[in-house]
């Protein structure tokens, strides 16, 4: 069991999303980077989507109240125990009662979200079919809000002591974001999609809803849409010409045209981008996108078997 000494910038419980609730205006939500979530869980022998702590940019400080196994993956937030021992992303450890685990800020350019798994998953109830925190709705996870000092976080399997080891990467590889043509590509000026594919962008403001991309201005022309359903990965073009890439907590409907959509296999990578990161897009066909997604699903299902659990 862990006691929260400091909640960090925005630490939330995240696991699987709520695809069946989108029709009620609820974002699908869940982990922004489900690859890293799956690895953190695999390190403890958990199900790939078991709820874990998603720690963004500036991590929490946690005091161990009872011995507790943790698995860590994703961005490097300099996790450290009070005796000076480092807890590296891609590793797991049995924490002892009395120890204090402190995370600090993400190293620029190396991801913004880390996942801390507990044995069996973080013990929170399912709300509307998922344990994940829905910040806009104020439900799920820990009372629908980020962690705060004084909270306690318990594992679903308090007796779980097994910790695994892993010698692969701790988060999704960097690289261009692969996109397919978006649903409005053919109605936008030709320069819209071309501008995205040729441009170099720098991530501006961002949160779990989406990230702003600063770079060449890409005008959407005169295309006028009435609000329509959106998807994570959609690259929207607002009238100001600064694209927005949508993440898992995006509003379920929106009125900006979408010239390109980041493929499902690259959403984990998209979920790790933070302010100042450089972004390039590369177009692929739907067939390639599908093969890549099937590859990701297979990789996630096999992560558990690639972790050696003591």
């Amino acid at each position, binding site marked *: 069991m862990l006691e929260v000494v400091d909640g960090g910038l925005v630490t939330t419980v995240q696991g699987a999303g709520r695809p069946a609730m989108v029709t009620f*205006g609820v974002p699908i939500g869940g982990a922004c980077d489900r690859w890293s979530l799956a690895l953190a869980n695999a390190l403890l022998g958990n199900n790939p989507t078991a709820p874990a702590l998603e720690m963004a940019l500036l991590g929490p400080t946690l005091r161990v109240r009872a011995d507790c196994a943790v698995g860590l993956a994703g961005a490097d937030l300099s996790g450290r125990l009070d005796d000076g021992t480092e807890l590296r992303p891609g590793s797991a450890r049995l924490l002892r009662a009395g120890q204090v685990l402190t995370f600090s800020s993400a190293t620029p350019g190396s991801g913004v979200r880390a996942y801390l798994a507990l044995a069996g998953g973080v013990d929170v109830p399912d709300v509307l079919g998922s344990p994940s925190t829905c910040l806009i709705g104020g439900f799920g996870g820990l009372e629908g809000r980020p962690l705060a000092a004084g909270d306690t976080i318990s594992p679903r399997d308090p007796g779980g002591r097994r910790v695994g080891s892993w010698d692969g990467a701790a988060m999704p590889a960097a690289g261009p974001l692969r996109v397919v043509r978006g649903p409005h590509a053919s109605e936008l000026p030709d320069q819209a999609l071309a501008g995205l594919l040729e441009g170099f962008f720098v991530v501006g403001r961002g949160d779990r809803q989406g990230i702003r991309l600063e770079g060449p201005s890409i005008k959407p022309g005169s295309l006028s849409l009435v609000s329509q*359903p959106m*998807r994570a990965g959609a690259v929207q073009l607002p009238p100001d010409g600064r694209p927005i890439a949508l993440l898992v907590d995006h509003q379920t409907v929106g009125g900006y045209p979408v010239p390109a959509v980041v493929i499902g296999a690259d959403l984990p990578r998209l979920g790790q981008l933070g302010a100042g990161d450089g972004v390039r897009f590369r177009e692929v066909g739907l067939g390639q996108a*599908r093969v890549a997604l099937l590859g990701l*699903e297979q990789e996630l299902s096999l992560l558990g078997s690639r972790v050696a659990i003591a």
Partner: protein
Amino acid sequence: MSIEPFGESALLVRLGERVDPLLSARIQSLAAEVNRARESGDGRLGVAVAGYASLLVPFDPTIGDVSGVAAWLRNAIASNSAEAAVEDWPLIEIPVRYGGADGPDLDDVARRLGLTSHKVVEVHGSVTYRVYMLGFSPGFGYLGELPAALELPRRDTPRARVPAGSVAIAGRQTAVYPLPSPGGWHLIGRTDERLWDVSREPPARLSPGQTVRFVSA
């Protein structure tokens, strides 16, 4: 009509680019058909999400592909008539306390429209609205169409926090904020009706296709 891929695991059906009750009814009807097909065993299909005149149809790419699902949708659209499938929703009445602290923008809205506050309230309650879609936040229904006499652009500066239950207008739309959230619409009143409650099934009071009237409390 167009059917375009929205990524490798969803299709976006668009019947037009306007706010139109008939297009919306056809979208609701198609959404119902997708959901029926899924419930009767078509494991490819996910839960469909409606826009004003569009429908997002997610599918499982491990067992479906774009061309197969698009063909299914084309067939469903061709054989579907809006009248046949739209469910007969009851009319929902929402009691509203207009003006004062509950509707801090009512007097300003009236002034900008050249109407009395009383007239704004009367016009807002004079029509039956259709729930076109849910979005923005959980349970937030976009209701239309607001009579042209009440049409105003959104506020220049959105509020950081709008209280739950606020009844608001913007453009040719009206809505009730189900949860405290930021908001750029004009607040003309407030209701005690709970538009969103996770302990209820379904959690949202409004569903696309329903009809709504506002009555002065």
